[in-house]
């Protein structure tokens, strides 16, 4: 017998009483993901005040050393301490991620809400422009921006931020369309609320959870993008510690000193993994509650 939807609805209808309590606690996914992200953030902050060696300190006498008690992760071809570089690099990664996500959210969220709230032609136009941007390779955008503004962390952040706008706009728009269909928005209109007040008081608070999830996912993408740009020489300039730059600089010695590639690679993978776990965990945490409210 086919019993799909009706049953699952009945079954889920029964669940809140039982599983809400367990959901209120922090899931393992959030704990692990959040732990990794927090660890990287703490290391980044620590590197502001202390690193084992000066991350920019070139020391020709101790080039390409293996792991030792003096240099835990060894040194690179300029004799710089790899651990210190990794620690300082996490700072660049975090700053780039935060600013890029900030830029994307600041522009993408209002665009998404606006296009959901209007029935006029320009709402549709905004979304089509959004699609266009989505189809445009982010790397190409970064190359263009670099060509215009020159290489640098700021250029990289802006490029990654602009490339992340569409995903925010889309997610927020679909959530906002759902909110706009509810009777409480209708009630607010009937109460005489202006569109701007409806956007701030009703739509935005009810799509916040979507924004948080999207932010953690976009952050992960930004970390990867920063590494890729720096690797291509379009991101952090020489002298600025960055995981992507470390990859680039270690590349020519891949067969001589593979650890120069492995350590930053692990760092990038760990950061992306942590952020993705956090995003998934948050999504699982928010979604059932959203469903219960409808």
């Amino acid at each position, binding site marked *: 017998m086919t019993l799909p939807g009706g049953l699952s609805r009945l079954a889920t209808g029964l669940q809140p009483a039982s599983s809400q309590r367990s959901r209120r606690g922090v899931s393992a996914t959030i704990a692990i993901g959040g732990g990794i992200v927090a660890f990287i953030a703490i290391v980044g902050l620590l590197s502001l005040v202390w690193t084992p060696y000066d991350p920019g300190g070139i020391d020709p006498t101790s080039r390409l050393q293996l792991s030792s008690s003096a240099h835990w992760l060894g040194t690179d071809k300029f004799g710089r301490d790899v651990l210190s570089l990794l620690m300082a690099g996490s700072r660049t990664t975090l700053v780039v991620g935060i600013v890029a996500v900030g830029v994307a959210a600041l522009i993408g969220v209002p665009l998404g809400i606006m296009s959901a709230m209007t029935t006029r032609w320009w709402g549709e136009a905004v979304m089509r422009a959004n699609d266009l941007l989505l189809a445009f390779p982010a790397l190409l955008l970064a190359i263009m921006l670099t060509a215009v503004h020159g290489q640098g962390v700021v250029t990289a952040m802006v490029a990654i931020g602009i490339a992340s706008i569409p995903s925010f706009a889309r997610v927020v728009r679909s959530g906002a369309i759902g909110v706009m269909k*509810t*009777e*409480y928005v*209708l*009630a*607010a*209109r*009937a*109460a*005489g*609320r*202006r569109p701007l*007040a409806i956007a701030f*008081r*009703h739509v935005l*608070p*009810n799509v916040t959870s979507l924004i948080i999830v999207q932010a953690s996912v976009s952050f992960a993408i930004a970390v990867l993008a920063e590494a890729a740009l720096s690797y291509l020489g379009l991101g952090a300039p020489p002298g600025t510690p960055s995981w992507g730059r470390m990859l680039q600089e270690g590349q020519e010695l891949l067969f001589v000193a593979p650890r120069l590639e492995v350590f930053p690679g692990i760092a990038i993978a760990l950061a992306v993994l942590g952020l993705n776990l956090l995003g998934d965990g948050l999504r699982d945490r928010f979604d059932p509650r959203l469903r219960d*409210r*409808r």
Partner: protein
Amino acid sequence: MTREFRRQRTSLFTPAPVVHALRGVSLDIAPGERFGIVGESGCGKSTLLRIIAGLDQPTSGVVEVDGVDIARLPERRLGFLREKLQLVFQDPMSSLDPRMKVRDIIAEPLVAQGKRDTLPRVLELLEAVGLQPEAADRYPHQFSGGQRQRISIARALAPDPQILVADEPVSALDVSVRAQVLNLIAELVDRLSLTLVFVSHDLSVVRHVCDRVAVMSRGEVVEIGATEQIYDAPQHPYSRQLVAAAPRLRAALAGRTAADLAADTLAAKERP
């Protein structure tokens, strides 16, 4: 002072495949009247209600409230209507913003009018709908369906409206709570001398609440008249069907089975 709604030849077109949600609907509602609109899903009653409330615009036609045609007014010039006319919705879950406290929900129409210090009025309204003052600082999900509908009614009454429009306000409620909410609406309408526009799919609910009723089918008003008259002697085939198909406890206990219901419904449709 007179107040009336006049609606003529209202038809709503949505783009692409043209859907005639309403065709040539005309009706007048006198001040102080309790007016019911009955019909089944998709008959256009919700569209009509939204147009009356200024939340939607007719493709053609006139909607006059107190002599002002609201059909062509832009939203920012509907302020007078927002003070005069308020709505109660069907779903007590989705009609209250889950992220807002009850005091903010009820105060919303007041805040929209630029009023400050709304708390005394909110507490007064909570009392009027039979809720404790503590309710003000709680969130909607902490209330049962019936209590949420009381909150919704309190919000509607906040700007001291003259017209209350209720869209299926009890169809999502438990039977044991439905009677309470119907009584509350009736009491408030009496006490505040409101004009009530009450939309429902259930003729027996409308019969209890309203003096006059319009029966709608496929975007048209097929019959309009005193509630008792339509309930006891429906003229239009569709009204007859609606009356015949509704199961009634007393008739059922007197031996009216599902087969009788079905036979009567079909007979009502076919009788010339």
